[in-house]
């Protein structure tokens, strides 16, 4: 007996570390390295990459060409006073157009996605309504069947949301450019559709994560689903919903630069233009401007969410808090 137990004990002690979460993470990491190695034929190319980056950075990218902030021959600059003439530059015009596209599509997307996410959330969904409906009809429906039907019904809005986000925003942009032609309209439509799919998923996950007791109390009181949704669920999840909407605005802004490449308007049009002419120093100037705007959006997000939390320090966000983690920021 002892002899037979020995190999099992040996194996057990060998695999014991793998039973922990850390062991599983290490195993997954090693597995991914193995797959990655299988995809790469020539590791030598990777070693050349750093050299290429240095050459590309010093000879093409740096220093940035800030002439993108100067007014161009077209459109004709009619701004007064003259120090405001940067508003005639391609960077400003493109940036403002991208921000407009991102803002409008985020607002439209959020308005459409909130009802869909409320319908898709299983904790507010039709489950109870359906079982009550069958009970009222006096049909001997097993609770398992009504559970199954409620699952199916709550999947319909999920299906829509999944369909909207299954295509990346650039494909939606190409699609809408074909439908309505070049320009910001195609951009707004593409970003709105993508926002509905993406934001809707984030929202229903936040709603499903909320505590059940406010819903129970309101259900017992006899409040309607509409009242529960707008007076309980949305205020309770406000922190998450605001952060997700601002994240989506930031995402739309960053992707607004990409969809411009396919002619859907915004700063992407100019980036694409300078990429074609290999003027990378102008491209890096645009990228720095985008980076700064993303930081500003992040600051707005922290500020907006601070109204919904009492965590010390978050009520007074500073520029420092964008760059430095909270724990380090305190010192």
């Amino acid at each position, binding site marked *: 007996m002892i002899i037979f137990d020995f190999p099992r004990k040996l194996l057990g002690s060998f695999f014991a570390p793998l039973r922990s979460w850390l062991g599983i993470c290490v195993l997954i990491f090693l597995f991914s390295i193995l797959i990655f190695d299988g995809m790469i034929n020539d590791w030598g190319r990777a070693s050349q990459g750093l050299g290429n980056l240095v050459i590309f950075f010093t000879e093409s990218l740096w220093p940035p060409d800030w002439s993108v902030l100067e007014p161009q021959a077209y459109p004709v600059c009619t701004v007064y006073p003259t120090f405001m003439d940067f508003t005639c530059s391609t960077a400003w015009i493109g940036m403002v157009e991208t921000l407009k596209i991102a803002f409008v599509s985020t607002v439209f997307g959020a308005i459409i996605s909130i009802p869909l996410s409320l319908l898709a959330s299983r904790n507010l969904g039709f489950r109870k309504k359906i*079982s*009550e409906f069958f*009970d*009222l009809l006096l049909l001997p429906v097993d*609770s398992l069947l009504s559970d199954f039907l409620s699952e199916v019904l709550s999947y319909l809005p999920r299906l829509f949301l999944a369909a909207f986000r299954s295509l990346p925003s650039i494909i939606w942009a190409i699609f809408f450019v074909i439908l309505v032609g070049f320009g910001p309209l195609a951009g707004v439509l593409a970003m709105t559709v993508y926002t509905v799919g993406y934001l809707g998923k984030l929202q229903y996950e936040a709603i499903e994560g909320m*505590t059940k*007791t*406010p*819903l*129970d*109390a*309101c*259900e*017992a*009181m*006899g*409040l*309607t*689903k*509409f*009242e529960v949704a*707008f*007076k*309980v669920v949305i*205020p*309770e999840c*406000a*922190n998450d919903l605001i952060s997700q909407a601002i994240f989506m605005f930031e995402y739309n802004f960053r992707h607004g630069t990409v969809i411009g490449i396919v002619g859907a308007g915004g700063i992407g049009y100019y980036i694409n233009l300078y990429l074609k002419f290999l003027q990378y120093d102008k491209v890096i100037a645009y990228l720095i401007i985008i980076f700064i705007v993303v930081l500003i959006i992040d600051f707005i997000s922290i500020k907006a969410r601070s109204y*919904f939390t*009492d965590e010390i320090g978050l009520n007074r966000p500073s520029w420092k808090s964008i760059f430095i983690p909270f724990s380090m920021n305190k010192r």
Partner: protein
Amino acid sequence: MGGDSIEEIPWKIEPIIRLNDVSIGYKKEEPLVQIPNLEIFPGEIVAIAGPSGVGKSTLLKTIAGLIRPISGSVEVCGKSFPNRPNRGELGYIPQSLGLVRHASVLHNVMLGANAGHNNPIPFIGICLPSFVAKKKSIEAINSMGLEEKISEPIRRLSGGQQRRVATARTLAQCPELILADEFLSELDEKTVDMVLKEVTTYVKSNNSALLVVEHDIKRAKMMADRLLVIDDGRVNPFITEPTAMEVKI
């Protein structure tokens, strides 16, 4: 201030809660509590006591219509499950209160007041602003001594203050039946007396009923007309002890 005992109530009065051969729990195979017969009449304050995990809160949830009974009939405010009592007839204070943490005290109490005093527009389900509901809410908040916290978000209140908000929400609703799950815990003695006085006055003057879960058997005896003890065990665990103790106010 003790309530009318069950014998004094005329037999014609319909009970607010009527349970018949009810078996409750989360799994069909493992019922937590089996109740052969229970009736609670208007004007009665009934306390449920018993060790933790025995199924007191589950019983309250079943009566609130949040959990389907395993078997038997549950009739609340004249409607038997799965039909629900009319809007606003049932007030429920869960153990974890069920308040909207990011909203103000007034917003939370208005939820109850709207349920009791405001009818939603058919099909849309939304209520128009109502001065009656707002007045009732402010009255309820004042009666709980929270007038200074009226626009404060719930998350900034202490545990005891939150319990008072949940009680105010139910009082503003003016329900026929109040189900309260340990709504007096975390409160100091003075506040317990104040809250209890408000609630009992409401129940007695409006001929409502209060079914309260209370783990402190001494306090349960103090506040209730009848005490139901759920003993450990699954078959007929109900022991009824008529107490009609005087409520200290």
